[in-house]
């Protein structure tokens, strides 16, 4: 698969990376919109339950684009990324973040929650997604 891989063309990687970055910016941004509301920042006149329902489609689509682009980027040099510690941490946090987002996060918000629990859930969600971003950033900074 690595032989004659069109993804090794010089411009392909940056272009796909742009889709990856825009994808996760929209996805994490939409999730952050809900989390910031739980923390009392931003769209305070709307309830978190409303916001999560209205941003749901944006999150799914942009996350799908970002993950797909990420898979393409990964395929250009699987060994390098597999052996890269920040990348592994990023993947673990990504799985945790996605699972958390669609289980506890959604359930807690849909059910109507006390503000203390809401803040905890929001902080956890933001921390997980921030770790994904950090991991991604550090990947390019570490050789292996």
């Amino acid at each position, binding site marked *: 698969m690595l032989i004659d891989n069109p993804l090794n063309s010089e*411009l392909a990687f940056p272009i796909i*990376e742009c889709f990856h970055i825009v994808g996760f*910016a929209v996805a994490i941004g*939409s999730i*952050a919109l809900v989390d910031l509301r739980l923390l009392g*920042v931003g769209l305070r*006149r709307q309830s978190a339950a409303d916001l999560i329902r*209205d941003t749901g489609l944006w999150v799914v689509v942009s996350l799908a684009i970002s993950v797909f682009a990420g898979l393409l980027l990964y395929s250009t040099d699987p060994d390098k990324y597999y052996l890269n510690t920040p990348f592994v941490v990023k993947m673990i946090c990504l799985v945790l973040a996605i699972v958390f987002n669609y289980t506890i996060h959604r359930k807690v918000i849909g059910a109507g929650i006390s503000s203390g629990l809401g803040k905890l859930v929001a902080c956890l969600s933001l921390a997980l997604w*921030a770790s994904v971003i950090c991991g991604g950033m*550090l990947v390019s900074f570490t050789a292996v």
Partner: protein
Amino acid sequence: MLLSLAIWFQNTALCALVRDWPLAYPIILTLHLIFISLFATTILATDLRLLGWGLRKYSISDIVDQLRVPKRIGFVLVVTCGLLTLGSKAEEYYYNPYLRVKFLLLALVGVHALVFRGSVYNKAAELDVLAEPPLRAKLAAGLSLLLWLGIAIMGRSAGYVYPPAGTHHFATLFDSAFMPSLFL
């Protein structure tokens, strides 16, 4: 002249600190990215609502007015981190063509604010009564999204360029691991 300004900036105490402390550069760059995500949220929500593409259940004034302060705070945070990372290697970044385009686009964002802030972003209540956002609002929102998208892409592309030989190249702890230059 700009070059000497860059050299002066990178030699200030704060930027020298970012350069000398090994973990500073990656940490601040990561913060830059995290703040970008939060800032992008506010820009995205505002502009998508003005285009009529998202969050249609809420009135325009709801979204635009509530996100105004978070937008400004986010902008300040992003720019602070950006200036610190820029200052750590300002002379090297002076030669980076993608950063030049990025700052040109940032200047255009300023122009965009001058042109559209008074007529669109500050007049959200007036836009509420209309069935569809007017052309001017859609134009403002569309241009804003394109400009910020361009800024983000230019910012990422800037990381792909190695400095030309003969210029000061400050090797931070992680520099040697950067991806090889694709565009020199």
